[in-house]
């Protein structure tokens, strides 16, 4: 098919577009379910989507997908007629979802370079049966209409049959090229073109609207008999203009010959004029009124890999800039012009960085919309009622981060339906409305995005959590010391699961801790809160972006560390007597009446330094999830934008050094380790 030019970019585009269309389709169906049935606009739009997928897939020779899309298109073509009163829209939705899932699977296979051997036959059969059922409903009506239409036409053509006979009579047999498709319509187009210059035109096959006659035309050619005032060569010229024409046999007939039967092979009807004009045309209406249609936008789709590369390059540029401006060779020099130029460079670099960041920002809408389907499917399976309310889906986060939160979110929403929302009876018994609500909300908060999954279900049971945690040895301090929030957050620990029975969707014991782990890998955190009988709220705090952050460089001995500026509360040099040691030997500091633990970095990482006295060095107070820690270091070196690079694999996996989030390059080319505040606070 399209083998003679490279398929790669086309394939990418096919995958991208088809996935987008499937997403739209899913949303349309879900919306339609909410409004109880398919609106005219929705049907048109679904039809159009299936049509596009069918065409593109056929071009790419993914026949399974194409056939299935064709079949679904047929289904909505039927619905489009709007004659059917009893439409089981829930059943149709189920079938379409089944189809969507099949296509999605195929697309995944295509993406992975696997062969697409999936066979949608079962779904196609199901849909076809349903189409037949639908059609069975109205066949009586349409037959009637057909008859009426034919009658009218007969009358019309009879009145047109005038007394005047043109001079010449012709017989033509047209053969079309192999594989030109829709031979019947091509034949129809020939008849249409001859209409104005001929009269008494008859043809075989007669019923050109019947698609099965294409086979006849392929085999025997398309035969036409007509009269005209035009000469042989003119007629031939007109007929030869037919596109996809392989062979033309045109013969002039004597006038008497014209009326002989037998001129056309197998003419089984005496009044061919009856069907010359087709009675009905299935019309498609304009979609001007459709609000669902996509508007034109000046948007370019770019390969994410290229953006990643660009991001890397900008990162390198930030480092290179620092290398130039903070070059040790410049130390002690008075360079006014250089400083001015350097400032300008700095400004532009920051602007480029912001721009590249903003390119990578993607709205959460698509990720959030996916959850609709999950809630719907689970409610059906578990026989519960719940609706998903989405707010703030326009909030944007870095593309890489979206990929990391999609799975955890899915898990949280599943949990909410499975464990949070009660059955309708239980809900009504406790005075709530039968239909549960799950709120999915996103909002920006400084350099973070907060994503909240809130259900109005039964809430977490504190005693149960404590009992479980004790049983599994997960308690890290005494029960009485723990706040409610700390207790709820126990469910995030590895190996914790409150539900004994396992359902298809959640509760396999690898639940919340995986969510927490996933979110932590992108520098975020998870908070659990709950009120008995009124629901559970889980908040994901996620950084807007990963790659470039503001960092504070600090020195311990000869080693340089970098702290994310965002987590620094304050830094100060302690006075004599502010520090003390608690009975367990932990060093603490008293700041404005509160006690905070001190972490000596030189001890923690075993670094040789002369500064071991608190009064000689500096204390940096950092915060993570409402927990505060004071880090003791030799000195502050200054603030700069840093590009976060992950630690080499062997350091991460084999050395397992605690409290490191990554590393970065400094202006002088040396390496600085980025401290993981979360790790230090909980370590």
């Amino acid at each position, binding site marked *: 098919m399209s083998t003679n030019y490279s398929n790669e970019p*086309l394939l990418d*585009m096919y995958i991208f577009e088809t996935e987008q269309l499937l997403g739209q389709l899913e949303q349309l169906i879900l919306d339609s379910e909410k409004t109880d049935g398919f609106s005219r606009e929705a049907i048109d739009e679904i039809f159009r989507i299936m049509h596009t997928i069918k065409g593109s897939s056929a071009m790419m020779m993914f026949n399974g997908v194409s056939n299935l899309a064709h079949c679904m298109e047929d289904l909505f073509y039927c619905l489009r007629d709007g004659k059917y009163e009893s439409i089981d829209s829930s059943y149709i939705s189920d079938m379409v979802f089944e189809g969507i899932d099949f296509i999605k699977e195929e697309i995944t296979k295509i993406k992975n370079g696997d062969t697409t051997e999936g066979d949608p036959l079962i779904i196609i059969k199901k849909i076809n049966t349903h189409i037949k059922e639908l059609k069975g409903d109205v066949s009586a009506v349409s037959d009637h209409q057909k008859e009426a239409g034919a009658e009218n036409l007969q009358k019309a053509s009879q009145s047109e049959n005038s007394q005047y006979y043109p001079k010449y009579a012709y017989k033509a047999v047209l053969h079309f090229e192999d594989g030109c498709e829709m031979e019947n319509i091509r034949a*129809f187009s020939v008849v249409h073109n001859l209409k104005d210059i001929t009269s008494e035109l008859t043809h075989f096959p007669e019923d050109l609207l019947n698609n099965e006659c294409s086979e006849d035309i392929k085999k025997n050619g398309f035969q036409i008999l007509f009269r005209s005032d035009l000469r042989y060569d003119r007629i031939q010229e007109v007929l030869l203009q037919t596109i996809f024409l392989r062979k033309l046999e045109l013969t002039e007939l004597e006038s008497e010959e014209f009326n002989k039967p037998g001129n056309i092979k197998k003419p089984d009807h005496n009044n061919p004029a009856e069907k010359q004009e087709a009675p009905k045309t299935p019309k*498609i209406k304009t979609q001007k009124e459709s609000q669902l249609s996509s508007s034109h936008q000046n948007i370019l789709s770019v390969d994410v890999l290229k953006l990643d590369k660009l991001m890397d390059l900008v990162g390198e540029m930030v480092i290179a800039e620092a290398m130039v401006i903070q070059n040790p060779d410049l130390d002690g020099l008075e360079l006014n012009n250089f400083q001015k130029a350097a400032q300008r460079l700095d400004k532009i670099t920051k602007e480029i960085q912001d721009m590249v960041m903003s390119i990578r920002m993607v709205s959460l809408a698509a990720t959030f919309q996916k959850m609709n389907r999950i809630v719907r499917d689970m409610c059906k399976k578990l026989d519960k009622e719940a609706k998903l309310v989405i707010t703030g889906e326009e909030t944007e986060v870095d593309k890489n981060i979206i990929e990391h939160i999609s799975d955890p979110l899915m898990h949280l929403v599943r949990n909410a339906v499975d464990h949070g929302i009660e059955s309708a009876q239980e809900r009504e018994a406790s005075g709530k409305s039968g239909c549960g609500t799950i709120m999915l909300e996103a909002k920006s908060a400084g350099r973070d995005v907060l994503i909240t999954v809130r259900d109005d279900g039964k809430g977490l049971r504190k005693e149960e959590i404590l009992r479980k945690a004790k049983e599994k040895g997960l308690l890290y301090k005494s029960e009485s010391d723990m706040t409610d929030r700390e207790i709820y957050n126990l469910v995030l620990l590895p190996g914790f699961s409150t539900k004994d029975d396992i359902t298809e969707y959640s509760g396999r014991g690898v639940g919340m801790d995986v969510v927490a782990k996933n979110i932590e890998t992108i520098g975020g955190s998870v908070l659990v809160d709950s009120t008995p009988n009124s629901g559970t709220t889980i908040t994901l705090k996620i950084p807007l972006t990963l790659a470039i952050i503001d960092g504070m460089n600090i020195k311990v001995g000869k080693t340089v560390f970098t702290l994310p500026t965002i987590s620094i509360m304050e830094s100060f040099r302690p006075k004599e007597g502010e520090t003390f040691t608690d009975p367990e030997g932990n060093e603490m500091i008293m700041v404005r009446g509160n006690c905070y633990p001190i972490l000596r970095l030189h001890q923690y990482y075993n670094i040789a330094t002369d500064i071991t006295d608190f009064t000689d060095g500096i204390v940096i107070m950092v915060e993570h999830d409402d927990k505060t820690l004071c880090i003791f270091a030799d000195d502050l070196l200054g603030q700069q934008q840093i590009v976060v690079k992950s630690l080499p694999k062997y350091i991460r996996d084999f050395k397992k050094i605690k409290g490191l989030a990554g590393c970065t390059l400094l202006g002088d080319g040396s390496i600085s380790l980025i401290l993981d505040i979360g790790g230090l606070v909980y370590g």
Partner: protein
Amino acid sequence: MSRILIVDDAAFMRTTIKMALEKAGHVIVGEAENGMEGLSQYIKLKPDLVTLDITMPVMNGIDALKAIRKYDNNAKVLMVSAMGQEGIVREAVLSGAKTFIVKPFSSEKLIQTVEKILSA
């Protein structure tokens, strides 16, 4: 070499058609995502030929065809259809489409068809 306008709501189809026709030395003077845009592009660009998809949002191919033909009675329009659209294609023929091509098609077939229309 002819100046061609491609009207199709699927970027994939536009690219496929574009690649094939450009290979044959034609110039794609414009692309449009729906009939409405196609019509305004046609008026602006006056291409030698338009490839027109049938099923599109905002304004479908048939309405666009009618509008284009109303504006320019000699417009050369190649309808791009898919199997199962016989009825609509028939309407397109009645409304003055030069011919139609059925998806899936090879690039050779497309080029051949386009050249036939142009030479007619």
